[in-house]
């Protein structure tokens, strides 16, 4: 399974839809997309991981890299994820404390509405 990427804006959020495997082989494409979005002035990213089958530490590295980039612009990078197998990887690496993780896009949007 390869990686499919898509994105669109909703309110102030840029929603990045990720489908497939984020691994050492495909992660560079996600990295490029995140860098590109930030360069174009999108600083509030919400990455939807619900259709991700496989995530390895290269993928984690790319997400962390994205987070650092948006933070440099006072932005945010948050995740939508309910899959236990994927959540486990964030937990093992302690990254649940670093990323906001929501159960749905709507829940994330709501939280954002409150913040701002």
């Amino acid at each position: 399974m390869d990686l499919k990427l898509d994105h669109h804006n909703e309110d102030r959020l840029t929603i990045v839809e990720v489908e497939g495997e984020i691994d050492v082989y495909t992660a560079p494409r996600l990295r490029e997309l995140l860098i590109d979005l930030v360069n174009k002035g999108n600083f509030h990213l919400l990455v939807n991981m619900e259709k991700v089958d496989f995530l390895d530490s290269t993928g984690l590295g790319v997400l962390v890299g994205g987070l650092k980039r948006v933070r440099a612009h006072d932005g945010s990078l948050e995740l939508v994820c309910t899959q236990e197998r994927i959540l486990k990887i964030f937990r093992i690496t302690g990254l649940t404390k670093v990323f906001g993780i929501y159960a749905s896009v709507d829940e994330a949007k709501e939280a954002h509405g409150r913040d701002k």
Partner: protein
Amino acid sequence: MATVELTFSALPAHVRTARLVATAIARRTGVEESLLDEVRLAVGEACSRAVEAHRAHCPGEPIRIELRDDSGRFEVTVSDLAPSDEHEQERPLDLSMLSDSYTSGFGIAVIAGLADDVEVFPSPKGMRIRMSWPAGLNGHAAG
């Protein structure tokens, strides 16, 4: 002798081949279905780490993965030939220190969190990571 040994050049695509082989052999060896995800991920991590290390230090050298199913356990050893001077030890999480490259040590953290049993042997001549999982009694092939 390792039951199966896979040698591959330091390319990300081959990490997928290694994952595929490890998962297939784990399944046959009788590793529980619920653990196969962990096998796939941990073996992938170890191989990704090795690929990154080779690309930085010795892109022309091959990486080796050995898979054994004797001894009642499914055992995987990934060996690279890159000098491991990076001291990938555990550090408290500090975002400013995290880079989006491999030196962040997530790989080792993931492996340690997933494998039933892990040993890491760093050396100036390369790193060896040995992981293992319990193998069911209904595994078919020995040897």
